[in-house]
């Protein structure tokens, strides 16, 4: 029923790392929650179900825990039953079951006749399966929709912020990783990956990374901002996996192993800093009772520990050295640099685009976290709530500090983490190549090397030397007004989050498409030449607008059509059934014999003629 194979144990370790600090944080947060029993039952079931997913080794057990994970997290979103939370929960419920359908199909195709067959038997069935690409698409849509990959990410920025903060930390930090685990696990049952699979994953990753960070920049709800960053980081992880799959197909197992390690290491890192960010943001939310970033400001004076924890996580997620976020991004860049060894020129030329996407993502992430930290914690208090905020209670502080310890130890003990990851994945053992000595990590090719401990040491020593020099100067200090060129500084005049992201929002206006309402002013009922225009900054995600609303419209159209059909006379029904029989016959041919595009075309033409003549009929 359960199995403790290396990959499961690795992710069990990840879950425990994410959960233990969260328990402290949750107990501090608990008096903020009204329905305590409901929350606690769902919270613990949620944790147990995640562990269950990771450890299960049978189809039915896996599906049970997977569904339990979805349902409990759905209930946790509903802890505070506000109007928008209910909406978010409904969306989440729909999307998670949309993915579940694909997972179910995948299992039904592979499990043969018994739902209790274990995953070992999958290998043979999968590799004998006639259309492995079908299986790949099923796991990609099924698991990655849970992980929040573009274009199936739209639910994520709604669902994660709606939950209470400890749960957001768990959902973003750990649940997404469970989806990544499932994807990895079922990816490794195939013996051979066609080159297109790797390319698809790489493209999906690059898209998610860019889209995630761009929407995060325009976001004013701090938790939605962090949720959008989860989309970005899942994208980065998938870039690494895509590169790894491409290398594996091209028979470069060492490079592939390097990229896989980079991806899984980033999975760990993202768990640590995203959970910490959600905890700190949750503490701010706990004290100020608002998620709007424009209502914060100056909180570093009231909540120094929370601010410091947020700063650590922000530096780490912005991939600045010497943090763990930098290390994993460094590994991904190194593995992409190794793409120069590929023979296929077209493939080789496509890699710079992925590099470009990843680098731009890094740059924008820095901008975004300067905004998130600077507007939240620096400057003047922007609201009375922010003015009266106090440091959160001891338990919540302990939760944050424990999580920051996880962040820092992922950096300091990275040789061990990488050794653990390497031995847990079914890939070549490259640990000794990466670490000739324990202090520096070398890349596989290109002479790349990095050493976070030396870097950290160097930074500390240099800062200390400057500080000693600075102290020796015996400088006098004075505290005075901010120089604002003759004006007073006040809350209104300091920069807002909207203003901060202004240049970037304007540059990417083609993506954000802000709404501009122009109104001509009237004077006593007559039109004047003057007009006021209102810019609505709230941006509706492009994907939601085009893809989801489009699908919604299409479904509406189809249902309307079906509705009209159901009011037809008998003959039409018979015709409809006749058409369906033809469709079944044709599709049977397609699925069980060889596909010939000529046949399909012919059949489609026949179908179209039947539909035209028999169902729609002639125009009068």
């Amino acid at each position: 029923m359960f199995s403790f194979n290396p990959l499961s144990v690795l992710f069990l370790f990840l879950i425990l790392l994410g959960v233990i600090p969260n328990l402290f944080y949750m107990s501090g947060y608990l008096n903020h929650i009204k329905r305590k029993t409901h929350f606690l039952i769902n919270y613990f079931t949620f944790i147990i179900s995640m562990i269950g997913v990771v450890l299960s080794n049978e189809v039915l057990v896996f599906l049970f825990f997977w569904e339990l994970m979805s349902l409990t997290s759905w209930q946790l979103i509903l802890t505070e039953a506000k109007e928008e939370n209910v909406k978010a929960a409904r969306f989440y419920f729909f999307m998670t079951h949309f993915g579940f359908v694909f997972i179910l199909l995948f299992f039904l195709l592979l499990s043969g006749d018994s739902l209790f067959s274990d995953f070992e038997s999958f290998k043979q069935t999968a590799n004998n399966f006639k259309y492995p690409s079908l299986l790949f698409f099923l796991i990609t849509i099924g698991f990655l929709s849970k992980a929040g990959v573009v274009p199936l990410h739209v639910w994520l920025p709604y669902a994660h912020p709606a939950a209470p903060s400890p749960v957001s930390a768990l959902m973003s930090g750990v649940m997404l990783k469970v989806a990544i685990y499932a994807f990895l696990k079922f990816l490794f049952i195939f013996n051979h990956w066609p080159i297109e699979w790797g390319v698809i994953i790489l493209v999906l990753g690059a898209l998610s990374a860019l889209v995630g960070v761009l929407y995060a920049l325009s976001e004013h709800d701090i938790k939605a901002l962090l949720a959008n960053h989860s989309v970005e980081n899942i994208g980065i992880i998938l870039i690494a996996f895509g590169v790894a799959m491409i290398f594996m197909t091209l028979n470069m197992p060492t490079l592939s192993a390097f990229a896989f390690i980079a991806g899984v290491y980033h999975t760990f890192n993202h768990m640590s800093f995203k959970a910490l960010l959600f905890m700190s943001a949750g503490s701010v939310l706990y004290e100020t009772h608002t998620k709007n970033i424009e209502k914060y400001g100056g909180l570093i004076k009231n909540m120094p520990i929370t601010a410091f924890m947020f700063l650590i996580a922000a530096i780490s997620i912005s991939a600045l050295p010497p943090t763990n976020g930098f290390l994993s991004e460094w590994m991904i860049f190194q593995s992409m640099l190794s793409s120069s060894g590929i023979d296929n020129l077209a493939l080789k030329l496509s890699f710079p685009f992925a590099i470009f996407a990843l680098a731009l993502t890094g740059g924008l992430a820095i901008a975004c976290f300067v905004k998130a930290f600077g507007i939240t914690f620096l400057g003047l208090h922007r609201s009375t709530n922010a003015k009266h905020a106090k440091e959160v209670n001891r338990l919540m502080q302990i939760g944050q500090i424990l999580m920051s310890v996880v962040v820092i130890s992922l950096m300091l003990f990275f040789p061990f983490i990488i050794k653990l990851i390497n031995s847990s994945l079914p890939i070549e053992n490259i640990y000794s190549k990466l670490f000739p000595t324990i202090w520096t990590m070398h890349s596989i090719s290109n002479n790349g090397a990095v050493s976070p401990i030396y870097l950290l040491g160097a930074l500390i020593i240099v800062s200390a030397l400057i500080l000693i020099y600075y102290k020796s100067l015996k400088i006098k200090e004075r505290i005075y007004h901010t120089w604002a060129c003759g004006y007073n500084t006040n809350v209104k005049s300091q920069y807002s989050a909207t203003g901060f992201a202004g240049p970037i929002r304007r540059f990417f206006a083609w993506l954000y498409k802000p709404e501009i309402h122009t109104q001509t002013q009237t004077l006593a009922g007559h039109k004047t030449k003057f007009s006021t225009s209102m810019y609505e900054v709230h941006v509706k995600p492009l994907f939601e607008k085009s893809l989801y609303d489009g699908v919604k419209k299409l479904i509406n159209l189809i249902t309307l059509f079906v509705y009209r059909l159901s009011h037809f006379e008998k003959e039409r029904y018979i015709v409809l059934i006749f058409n369906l029989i033809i469709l079944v016959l044709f599709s049977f041919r397609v699925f069980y014999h060889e596909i010939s595009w000529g046949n399909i075309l012919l059949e489609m033409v026949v179908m179209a003629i039947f539909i035209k003549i028999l169902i729609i009929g002639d125009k009068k």
Partner: protein
Amino acid sequence: MINYILSILLIFLISPFLTGLIKSFKMYMLFKKPLSPFQPYIDFMKLIKKEVIYSKEASIISRISPFLILAPIIVVVFLLPPIYKGSYYISFMDAFTITGLLSLSTFFLMLLGLDSASSFGGIGSSREAFISALVEPAMILTIFAVSLMAKSIGLGSAAINLATHFPTHHAASFILAGIAFFILLIAENGRIPVDNPETHLELTMVHEAMILDTTGANLALIETAGALKFGVFATLFATLFLPFGANLCWCLAVTVFILKLILISLVVGWIEINTAKLRLFKVPNLLGIAMIFGFLSLVTFYIVGV
């Protein structure tokens, strides 16, 4: 080892001179009475004697960020490629680490801008965030191209490889990468087409706006960081994109190196005289050129083949 320390010292000492040189060169060309190129040293000595004024809205970030702005750049100076052959260099860090350290410095600079609640600081941080986000991809692409040509991502060995076996059949992609890197040099150091280091006009400020509220010794530290950053970029350009002269005997090599740095400073100054500062929303066009050249450099490298 002693060579290494001496060359590090040289870069430390010459960097403020280079920024001073640009300024006096510009003044000379504009028929003003030029300042001494050693003015930055005088400024430094003057600033560290003054008292430091903190804004009453400022938090601990204002107190720690001058150190954290300067420290990463000092670390970068220690990781630079050797100036002449046989000199020691650090091989356990590579070019990505250097870009990362420069970003770390910028990160704290931007936080400093937001700390004092002045709207000027916010303007500066916002613009810097915008520009540095677009610099990042161009930088990484250029580094990729160079590291492929030099067959190493470690800067030290890359510079040595370029100096000893210059890849003549990749000259095209080498030049493209060089142009891209020069644009980045201008953008990262806030020189004229991107930012004007001299004015204090709201419309033109980026770097100056962020440090508007910094005084005394803190300002001295940040100014030093700025000068060193220019020194770092000039050294990188001199060693990677003008890879000659390093094989001479050490006294000649150092002279050639200093001449190269002066040449780069003069070119930067020359560009500053002849161009107007770009509007903020035109800056992406310039950086776009750098990105495209980085791309082209990689593409030509791949197409020409090894």
